[in-house]
């Protein structure tokens, strides 16, 4: 089960995501379903095409399958998807 506690180590493909903040203001507000993931990028299926976004220096609002929303720091995600499973995670804060 994907929970806010283990989201950093769990699967992102198929989850709804929207960009909360980014150094590039044109990327703020992009939202859609995550289609693919590499070490440094996410591919998001938006209404008009698939967009490739860098993970670093971004805050992402992710909607979990049980419709809980979590804000994730993109810097913490920038590990290859298969290595994220065994990553050590610091405790999360409730906002």
């Amino acid at each position, binding site marked *: 089960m994907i929970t806010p*506690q*283990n989201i950093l180590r769990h*699967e992102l*493909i198929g989850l709804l995501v929207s960009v909360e903040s980014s150094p590039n203001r044109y990327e703020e507000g992009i939202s859609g379903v995550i289609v*693919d993931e590499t070490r440094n990028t996410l591919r998001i299926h938006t209404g008009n095409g698939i967009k490739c976004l860098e993970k670093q220096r971004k805050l992402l609002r992710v909607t979990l399958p049980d419709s809980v929303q979590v804000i994730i720091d993109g810097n913490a995600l920038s590990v290859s998807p298969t*290595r994220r*499973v065994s990553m*050590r*995670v610091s405790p999360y804060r409730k906002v």
Partner: protein
Amino acid sequence: MAKAEKGVSAKKIAQERVDILFERAKEARDEPELSARYVSLAREMAMKQRVRLAHYHRRSFCPSCHAYFIPGTNLRVRIQHGKIIYTCGSCGAVTRIPLNKKTESR
């Protein structure tokens, strides 16, 4: 230094992620490249964390090109000389699975 979460092992999460990825591969069967990508991600994760792929997962993709099998579309199944023969429609690789293997119980 932050401690890893207690009680939730990497293997358990890896198993859940493998199941999710195979489900996504099934959903994305209209896009063969995407579903092959999901299968190879799941396989890579299972190998790295040493999680065994379930019997029904192991049979559901081509071991050579990782294409997700859809019987009748990109998979041909024949029985010959006591073996099930899977022929992949996208790369042509042949997988032979022996029938009547008495030692293996499932």
